[in-house]
């Protein structure tokens, strides 16, 4: 049952939020308008998951690529994993355990566990659409901007809220997702490259992935 949707969550969220630098004077509309993915971006990420069922926080790290039609993650720790999400399918490769799993996405905005972020992605370019699904609060203080999103009741029963933030004039560097059972996950992101270089790096990893496809 293990599949890559948690990382996909991270990827998709980043797709929405990472690529565009944000000016200090930006309003929410400006931020949303610039959240649409344009050229590819390469990030290094660190994920920390806090769960009551775990003795300790769980951590993972690796590289994340965001492109217009693909989200791609190469997790390096705690063990190597490759995950690719396109509109039609989610591919999960675990070379250490020789696991190749494909999940056909009939509705790629409805993947368990990451639905809120996917819905956010789909509507993030429109404040009106966003406000249909979330209660939205945007703040900008002490050199950082923060977008606080609370899913409407019944829309996603497991998620209490999402918080996306970054430095003034910068893109997203932190995402916090809190669940109704008090578990939460944090993603910390560091931009590595963008444009042609990021595309080339992603392509190299994609080639590696294709050779593993069943």
């Amino acid at each position, binding site marked *: *049952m*293990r*599949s*890559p*949707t*948690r*990382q*996909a*969550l991270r990827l998709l969220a980043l797709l929405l939020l990472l690529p565009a630098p944000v000016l200090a004077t930006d309003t929410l509309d400006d931020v949303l308008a610039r959240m649409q993915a344009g050229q590819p971006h390469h990030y290094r990420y660190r994920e920390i*998951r806090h*769960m*009551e*069922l*775990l*003795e*300790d926080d*769980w951590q993972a790290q690796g590289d994340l690529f965001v492109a217009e*039609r693909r989200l791609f993650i190469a997790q390096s720790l705690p063990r190597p994993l490759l995950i690719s999400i*396109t*509109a*039609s*399918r989610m591919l999960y490769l675990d070379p250490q355990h020789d696991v190749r799993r*494909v999940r*056909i996405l*009939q*509705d790629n905005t*409805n*993947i*368990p*566990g*990451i639905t809120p972020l996917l819905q956010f992605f789909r509507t993030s370019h429109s404040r009106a659409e966003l406000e249909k699904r979330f209660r939205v609060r945007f703040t900008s203080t002490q050199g950082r901007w923060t977008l606080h999103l609370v899913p409407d009741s019944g829309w996603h029963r*497991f998620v209490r809220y999402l918080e996306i933030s970054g430095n003034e004039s910068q893109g997203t560097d932190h995402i916090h997702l809190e*669940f109704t*059972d008090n*578990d939460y996950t944090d993603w910390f992101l560091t931009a590595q490259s963008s444009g042609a270089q990021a595309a080339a790096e992603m392509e190299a990893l994609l080639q590696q992935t294709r050779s593993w*496809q*069943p």
Partner: protein
Amino acid sequence: MKHAGWFLVLSAGLALLAITTTRIHTDITDFFFHGDDADSAFLVNQLQSDELARRYLVGFSYPDLDEEAGFDFLTAVRQRLEADPDVQRVNSGRPSEAALRQLIQVYAPHHVQLFSLQPEQDFPTLFSTQGLDAQELRVREALLGPDPQLAKSLLHEDPMLLTLNWLQKLGRSTPRPLTRQGYSVLFVDTRIDATDTAAQARFQQRLQTIFKQLDASLGDAVHMEVTGVPVFAVHIKNAVAQDIQRVSILSAASVALLFLLVFRSGRALLVTALLMLTTLATAVLVTDGVFGYVHGLTLALGTTLIGVCIDYPIHAMVHASEAAGAATLQRLWSPMILAGITTVIGYAALAMSGFPGLQQIALFSATGILTALLLTRFALPGLIAMFHPSLHPRLSANWLLAEPVTRILRPGILVVAAVVVVAGDSRLHWSSDLNTLSPDLEQLRQRDRSIRTHLVTVEPGRFLLVSGNNIEQALQSAEQLIPRLRQLHDEGVLDAFFPVYPLLASRALQQRNETQWNEILDAAASTHWRQALERHGLNARTFPPLQPERLAPLQPADLKGTSAWPLISSQLVQLGEQTAAIIWLGHHDPGRVRRAVAGIPQVRYFSQKDSITRLATRYREHATTMLLLGMLTILLLLAVRYRSLRRALQVLAPAAASILIVMGAWGLVGVPLGMLHLVGLLLAAAICVDYGIFFADNRVGDRRITFQAIMVSALTSAVSFGALGAAQTPALHALAWTVAPAVLLGFLLCPLMLRGRVSC
């Protein structure tokens, strides 16, 4: 004259009624099979499976499109199809997220009962240190996986997440599409009645339109292939419909042309056409009334019935012209009745073969023959009086009756015939492969194979049938078979197999699982489990305790209405008094699988093709016996009529010789004979026996007239049956090349075998 007028009205009325009310079927299984025992009923059920008969497999190839564009295209196709009122559902062969969730909801409470096929080994293994470590690793991975909420929601009733083990087993046990770049398959289930090929054809047209519209927007970058039972059904229906049209037109036109050549009289043609039209309309209405429908093949064959039924009016008209006018008809009545009865006996024998198609043909033909006889006797004189047709044949073969000619021809022809019979009949072989009778489906089959290479799916038509007195027994036997199938899979003999388990297990197995779980679940086991949780960094205090299970076993009825039911319902079937569980097989070596399960009680390797062939062989053997009995009855009838067995044999001789010669010819050219050849031989025998009776009886005392009448009959029969050679359906070719030469031979052999030997 007055009666003739009423006849015209009646004729038009019957024709109109037949055209407007008759229900025509084209399903080939209607024609060939009948569920007269449990096995054949099961076979028919399989062939006519409602689900299969409504399902399309649609393959889309888009090698030049990127995944996003391909996905958008498929989504658009799905949306358009789902909006079609005739479409029940469209899916890609993998359960949707919603269906998967529903499955988990249904099965999660039964995670212990469905845990293993060998609970006595597997539960101790699960609770060993390694087993617990493996399971807790699975729990941890699930919690740290993409859907931790699903894992959390299961934990309260399944703290070890055994439901995930079940889900993994299910993934291995269901047909699914292979993942290929640039290729996708959609399963489209329609609501259209399986027998409504016209509606299926309209849906296929709509599917093509949807595809073309969407493909055009992508610059024709997508190639679509469609297969499925409805595709085959529509193709066969079209082929049969075209055959009916082609054969009817050709047959009618050929007979009309021949008639005009022979009689040079449009009125003679009109009179005969009226009689034949009434005959066919009556036969169609009676057949429809008895069977509830008329099969397309019966109709196609029915048009050739003209070739048989036309003999009576022709015989009468030629005699009426050449002898003592219309009054002669009364003198011909007796031999015509005899000829008609012998023919009907032949068909009655065929009807008793058990072959449903032949039963319908027999009724159709017998009705036609009796109607033609009655019309010849009671309607023809009035029509002759009304239309005054010229009845003098302009063609003559009476030179064959000249003694010097027959003296020269007889020995030569009889020797050649004897050689053909002896040499050919010894090489004769019969085939029960009904595929050879269907219209050419090779192109469709290739497309079907092409689409199925993209699926990990069942091999159509071959599976294991595990039977029992009830579901419980069948499930138990099927469960015992799984280890053997796994072994075959490991040996490379069997690509995949799809048993009922883990969707359902026998009550006994569920009970064993529960018992083992409850027995092993002591304080020590719980402690070991908590220790394993801690070893994997899981917070043991937050996990609910392991509890003994006390649940009623999961029953098939519990699954009705859930997303499991469509998966399981086709695998549990009623087989007469027994219940059977079907284990679908992927690509496999039939011989080795068959041998592997041979000797296991209750288990049978089922091959549709083998079963069809066995059934067809049974029908053919039965039909052959019935035909021989029929011929014997005809012989006895003739012996009674002529008060001499010798005379009866003489009358039958031309018919018997012509049939043997044609069979010999088939043997010499190496063509295997099948059921439709048998039908053709019966038709030929029926017609040729008539010639023998007419020739031998010679009621008007002038054999030249009789022979001339027989010649015209033989030519019309040969022409109308020869028209079947233009059909696409091989079954009709078999008839064409059996009946046409046989009736010509029967006609030619009459003067050679009967002249001067039968006193009248």
